């Protein structure tokens, strides 16, 4: 059977991260770990799109700064976001003096860009690459759903797009945290058409990539301290555990979902967080800190993305989903 997994010989390292998150997110688990906690989700800008772009710019700049580097030390940035034509990423890139690769994996963009950055470094083409992504609740809401002030009710399956951005500097050495492998996911579609139930749509993709990764590497699920999915939410997390269990793999004891843990659910977040920023912020702040302190040593970071658009869902299409996984380990 063909392998979808790369094992990196040179084990590219994660040197640093930079994160920023909105007020609602900072009331939750990431609050203590982010570099900048926003008191106002406009970030001093006049539109939500500009605020999202500024957050991404901040995360990239901060990651470079935290690595003790300057802009000219960086060879490239790989980034994407949720907005049409990935404007936040490309507009953020115009502030930096290095090449830019725009990628789109919806909410899986963080693991996709991390995997690509590690592959380019492992191959020896580049030395230092920034992988970053972000999202903003209000810009996502107006692109995909309704105006903010519209007095409608949110269905209980829905999730809340995370306002925040996270960036990481991946390099050919200089830290103990290594990207040891990557599994590129295939597009999986189990026929879910309900755009409010992203967790159920994305869970099969997560299951597929996690199982493929374990099969390709010959590892058991308990090899990892944590198997981290991106934004399946509470319901999606339950489904992914069921689906993997059905295939004879038990991820229950070490599975964590960024979307499920990001909020202290108090209002209308229901199933938890979502969006590209969700996995980016939780991984780059909270989980990165745990890795650095060696409280956890082996993480499979498998962010999931729903590859729909308002046009496709308007035309009654089901929701194709994808999941890319990177294994991140503490090495000597």
């Amino acid at each position, binding site marked *: 059977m063909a392998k979808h997994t790369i094992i990196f010989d040179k084990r590219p390292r994660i040197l640093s991260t930079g994160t920023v998150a909105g007020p609602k997110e900072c009331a939750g688990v990431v609050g203590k770990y982010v570099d900048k906690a926003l008191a106002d989700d406009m970030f001093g800008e006049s539109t939500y799109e500009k605020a999202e772009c500024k957050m991404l710019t901040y995360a990239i700049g901060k990651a470079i700064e935290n690595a003790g580097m300057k802009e000219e030390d960086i060879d490239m940035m790989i980034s994407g976001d949720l907005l049409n034509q990935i404007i936040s990423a490309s507009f953020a890139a115009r502030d930096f003096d290095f090449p830019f690769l725009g990628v789109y994996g919806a909410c899986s963009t963080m693991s996709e860009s991390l995997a690509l950055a590690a592959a380019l470094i492992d191959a020896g083409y580049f030395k230092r690459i920034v992988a970053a992504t972000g999202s903003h609740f209000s810009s996502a809401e107006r692109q995909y759903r*309704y105006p*903010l002030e519209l007095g*409608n009710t949110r269905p209980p399956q829905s999730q809340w797009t995370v306002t925040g951005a996270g960036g990481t500097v991946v390099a050919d050495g200089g830290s103990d945290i290594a990207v040891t492998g990557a599994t590129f996911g295939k597009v999986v579609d189990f026929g879910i058409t309900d755009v409010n139930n992203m967790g159920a749509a994305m869970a099969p993709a997560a299951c597929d990539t996690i199982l493929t990764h374990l099969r390709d590497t010959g590892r058991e699920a308990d090899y990892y301290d944590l198997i981290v999915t991106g934004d399946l939410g509470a319901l999606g997390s339950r489904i992914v555990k069921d689906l993997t269990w059905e295939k004879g793999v038990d991820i229950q004891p070490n599975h964590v979902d960024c979307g499920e843990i990001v909020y202290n659910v108090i209002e209308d977040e229901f199933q938890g967080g979502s969006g590209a920023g969700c996995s980016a912020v939780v991984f780059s702040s909270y989980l990165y800190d745990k890795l650095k302190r060696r409280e956890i040593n082996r993480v499979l970071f498998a962010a999931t993305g729903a590859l729909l658009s308002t046009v496709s869902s308007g035309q009654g299409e089901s929701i194709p989903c994808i999941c890319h996984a990177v294994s991140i380990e503490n090495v000597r």
Partner: protein
Amino acid sequence: MTEKNRENYNKNYIAYVNSFDPPTHHFKNCLRAFGVGGFICCIGQFFRVVLEAFGLSGDELAGTVSVLLIFLGTLLTGLGVYDRIGRNAGAGSIVPITGFANSVCSPAIEFKTEGLIYGLAAKMFVVAGPIIVYGVLSGTIVGIIYWLLG
């Protein structure tokens, strides 16, 4: 996997996913909608009584009450209050004319960043447009039936 198998598999998966659907509390929702909707109607009635005291009547009275309610709905939308009411009240705050005002006002606020013409004005009716179109259409059909029946 063949097309047929895939279809069956998806059907099973969707049924499995639907089994997680939390129950909808119809009674509680209706009660809330009744309370909030009723309260909005009471405000309308209050306007009516006051305006009647000022000597308004007939179409003038009905029109003025509507205008006042639309103003109130728009004001509360602008202040960021109406969506909070709507989140809990459901149909109770969507059905009255204040809800219609909210559905016109909220996209106008949202899209004013794209300019006064192509943003605010053009997007103003993205939510309310269908209500107007099908409202007029069904009104016309009922009118024709009424006319045919003499």
